[in-house]
């Protein structure tokens, strides 16, 4: 035990099999020398007293933290400018420019889409990267060496022959998919966009997965496929936005006309960017569901 290096002992400690020989350690009580008689026990007459004191301190500190947080947040809210105040710092020339020249500059009829996918496109890129990182982390945690692929038993697997689910799903599924694709494709013309439409599509994929069972879904969308789609869309987003960035936001060579209401092929880069974001979001939702619902094999 003592010959072990510090690294080995650390590895053992991480793995949970700690057997260090500190006196008083419960695991090594049996190996203690006989010289320690049990008459030292009266020092710890009531082992629960210490614990109770800790629980009381925990409760008091929890209340203190909550109250101080509440006071700080209330003070912050009180310091905010009043609602609809024309002299508020948010009503500056930036939002004015977005509202007045947003359609002319970005080409998007939907000003929100113009903001998040043209003026603030790198923010959206960061959000998509966050989603991808979350998927990767869940993949690392849940996809152990025992479960190479998503297993076939979903959470509703025993009810996948449920007539209610089948009938309602058959009616709802086409509508959900059409609506999601519509929201993604018309992101620059109507309310919605990549994130909303992608979430709708992800919900539809989850419904399909619980309807048909995951065994059938894996053939179409396995973990490799969704990860590959996400990576491809992220790279496409980065390439398009990087191109736009390095050409001075002029979209040189990308001659899609700007901002014709009712025309899907308009407003420059926003349509392909919306499609990329939608695919990333849908893949993330679906892979979260599939990874969480896979049954661990023992």
């Amino acid at each position, binding site marked *: 035990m003592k010959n072990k290096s510090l690294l080995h002992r650390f590895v053992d400690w991480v793995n949970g099999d700690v057997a260090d020989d500190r006196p008083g350690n419960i695991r090594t009580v049996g190996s203690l020398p006989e010289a320690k008689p049990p008459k030292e026990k009266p020092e710890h007459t009531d082992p629960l007293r210490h614990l109770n004191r800790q629980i009381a301190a925990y409760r008091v500190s929890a209340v203190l933290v909550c109250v101080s947080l509440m006071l700080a947040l209330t003070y912050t809210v009180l310091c905010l400018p009043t609602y609809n105040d024309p002299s508020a710092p948010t009503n500056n020339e930036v939002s004015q420019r977005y509202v007045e020249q947003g359609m002319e500059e970005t080409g998007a009829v*939907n000003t929100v889409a113009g903001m998040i996918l043209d003026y603030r496109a790198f923010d959206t890129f960061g959000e998509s990267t966050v989603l991808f990182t979350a998927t990767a982390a869940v993949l690392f945690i849940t996809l152990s060496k025992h479960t190479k692929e998503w297993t076939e038993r979903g*959470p509703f697997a025993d009810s996948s022959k449920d007539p209610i689910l089948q009938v309602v799903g058959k009616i709802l599924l086409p509508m959900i998919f059409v609506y999601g694709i519509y929201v993604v494709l018309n992101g620059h013309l109507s309310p*919605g966009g990549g994130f*909303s439409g992608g*979430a709708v599509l*992800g*919900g539809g994929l*989850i419904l399909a997965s619980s309807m048909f069972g995951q065994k059938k879904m894996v053939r179409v969308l396995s973990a490799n496929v969704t990860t590959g789609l996400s990576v491809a869309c992220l790279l496409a987003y980065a390439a398009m936005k990087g191109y736009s960035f390095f050409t001075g936001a002029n979209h040189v060579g990308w001659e899609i006309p700007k901002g014709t209401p009712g025309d899907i092929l308009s407003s420059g880069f926003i349509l392909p960017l919306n499609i990329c974001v939608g695919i990333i979001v849908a893949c993330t939702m679906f892979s979260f*569901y599939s990874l969480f619902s896979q049954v661990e094999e023992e």
Partner: protein
Amino acid sequence: MIYFEFLLLIFLIFCAVGTVFTRNLLSSIIVFMAFSAIMSVIWLLLESPDLAITEAAVGAGVDTILFLVTLKRIHALKGTEKDEK
């Protein structure tokens, strides 16, 4: 219309309190889903339909499914308990 908004806001507060104080985890999740559905209608009334779509899809749909999957995973749903041994 303003009365309808007040009604929705009162429902919203009821749902928020109910989510916290419901003992049964499954009921708590379903009340939380109702919270999201009401919230999406409120977003629509506040003239931000894109947020309403997202709230309905993520808050009421995917979140609920993920919570249910988690409950199933930790064997807290009825009929999915692990055997005693």
